[in-house]
């Protein structure tokens, strides 16, 4: 009986000497933040127990499973610490248990390899955008096709001036951290500039304080650029409430009371979009809407005269402002779209041909 333990002990001792024992070894989980180790074993036994040495010397059993190509990933570790594991292999035939031990330290890599395709696409689109923006800044003029929704902006202001009624501009119900709100403010600056020239009042109810202050700055700039700093009335750009429905109810009240001739709903909208568009519809105002919120587009398409669909909102702010940065980045987006179309076509072809690796590369198999 003792002989058996002696032999297994020597066996074990020798396995520690080889770089990688064929029975029990530890691999660092590649390409991660060094917080995980994969413990593998290949022992012909029906149940083996994996134990981990705790700092107080005791052994904590982590996992028990069949011995043949046994594998367990221990996570939540610390990259600076060495961890000691041992594998208990009870052998009922010899009624003893031999154990294998191993020590390892998780390594921190500098890159998540499975995110390579993710990084490549992000880099491709970003470099395209930066390239086009730099060129646009150097004065290169890029062509953008006319977006039909924008013609309406010019006639809306003309109509509002004829009727002597104000323009209502709703910059969406989300905060400044929503990109649609920022594009909406870019269109607001162009619109306010036009409104200042035609001496038409512009009302901008805001839902968040940051949007409020940004909108005030933007409209003030527009009035100064139009040479009418004193016509700028800060009180027409005001805060209503943080709550989605308090905000909409407030705007409804304004529409019914002040009867604006032109309504603009540009930015991020949710369920309340129909209340706005329907009440605006009933006051007979000419309405332009624009949002990248797909769930609200049907309502705007149904009840507004013009609707900027999805990315047209971002394109409109670039088209209107002719601002080199926005023009350049729009060309970058178009590059991205061509890239997307090419990738989808290539992906479909490789899938049909049965080469799974192409799609797996883009899925970034975890």
């Amino acid at each position: 009986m003792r002989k058996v333990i002696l032999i297994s002990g020597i066996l074990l001792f020798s396995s520690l000497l080889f770089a990688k024992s064929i029975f029990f070894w530890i691999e660092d989980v590649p390409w991660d933040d060094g917080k995980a180790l994969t413990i593998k074993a290949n022992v012909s036994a029906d149940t083996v127990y994996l134990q981990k040495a705790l700092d107080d010397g005791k052994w904590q059993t982590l996992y028990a499973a069949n011995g043949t190509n046994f594998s367990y990933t221990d996570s939540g570790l610390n990259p600076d610490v060495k961890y000691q594991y041992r594998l208990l292999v009870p052998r009922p035939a010899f009624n003893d248990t031999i154990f294998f031990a191993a020590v390892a330290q998780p390594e921190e890599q500098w890159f998540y390899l499975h995110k390579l395709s993710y990084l490549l696409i992000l880099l491709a689109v970003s470099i395209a955008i930066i390239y086009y923006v730099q060129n646009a800044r150097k004065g290169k003029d890029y062509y953008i096709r006319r977006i039909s929704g924008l013609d309406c902006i010019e006639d809306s202001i003309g109509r509002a001036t004829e009727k002597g009624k104000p323009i209502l501009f709703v910059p969406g119900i989300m905060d400044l951290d929503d990109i649609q709100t920022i594009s909406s403010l870019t269109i607001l600056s162009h619109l306010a500039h036009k409104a200042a020239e035609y001496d038409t009042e512009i009302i901008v109810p805001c839902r968040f304080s940051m949007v409020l202050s940004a909108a005030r700055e933007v409209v003030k700039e527009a009035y100064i650029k139009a040479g009418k700093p004193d016509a700028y009335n800060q009180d027409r750009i005001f805060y209503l409430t943080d709550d989605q429905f308090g905000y909409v109810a407030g705007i409804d009240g304004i529409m019914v009371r002040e009867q604006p001739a032109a309504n603009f709903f540009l930015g991020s909208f949710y369920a309340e979009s129909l209340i706005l568009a329907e009440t605006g519809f009933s006051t007979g105002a000419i309405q332009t809407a624009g949002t990248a919120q797909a769930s609200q587009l049907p309502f705007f398409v149904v009840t507004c005269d013009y609707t900027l669909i999805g990315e047209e909102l971002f394109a409109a702010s670039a088209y209107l402002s002719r601002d080199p940065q926005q023009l350049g980045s729009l060309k970058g987006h178009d590059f991205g779209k061509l890239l997307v179309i090419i990738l989808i076509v290539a992906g479909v072809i490789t899938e049909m041909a049965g080469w799974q690796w192409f799609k797996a590369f883009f899925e970034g198999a975890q």
Partner: protein
Amino acid sequence: MSGFMATFGLWLSVFFTLSIFSFLYKDNPFYKLSEQIFVGLSAAYWLVYLYYSVMVPNLFNKLFTDFKGNLILLIPTALGLLMLLRLIPKTQWLSRYPIAIMIGTSAGINMVRYAKTDLLGQISATMINPFASDNVITVIGNILLIVGTICGVYFFYFSKKQEGIRAVPSKLGIWFLMISFGASFGYTVMARISLLIGRLEFLLKDWLHIIK
């Protein structure tokens, strides 16, 4: 006493329900009153829950229990207070620092998350072999899915005038979009109706006890 309060509460909610519905007839003082009470209540609600759920556990508790360990939290608190300076016109420019941090961080997060889930995720989800399934309906569906996505993306291509041969994919794209808008409209009619059903059930059941 609490029995009286319960019935008073019921009548209060009936009053508010009917005064909001009165907006359908025309804008009237009852609606305006309820509108402003709603604005006030929701503002207070946000503030109370902000204080109890966020400010106390994530900030004040940490600072009071072990001030030393959480010294670093003084920086965001200071930035937050700077944000409040926006209320005083003279010191408004100071609030630009916390706003810049907020907008910069959100821009970084948006860029990374949208690229992974909406760009990469949707591209790889469209890389399917349409003829893989045996059911002919799914095959047609998958072809529509691939063609629809490509033409839809092409519709948002702004660099070329969409005439002649290039008008075909763009036309297809707007058709797919219109089908999708029709589907969304149909879906949404149900949503709006069910909200009305909810309120009518309240009026008919809890108030008028017409339905059990």
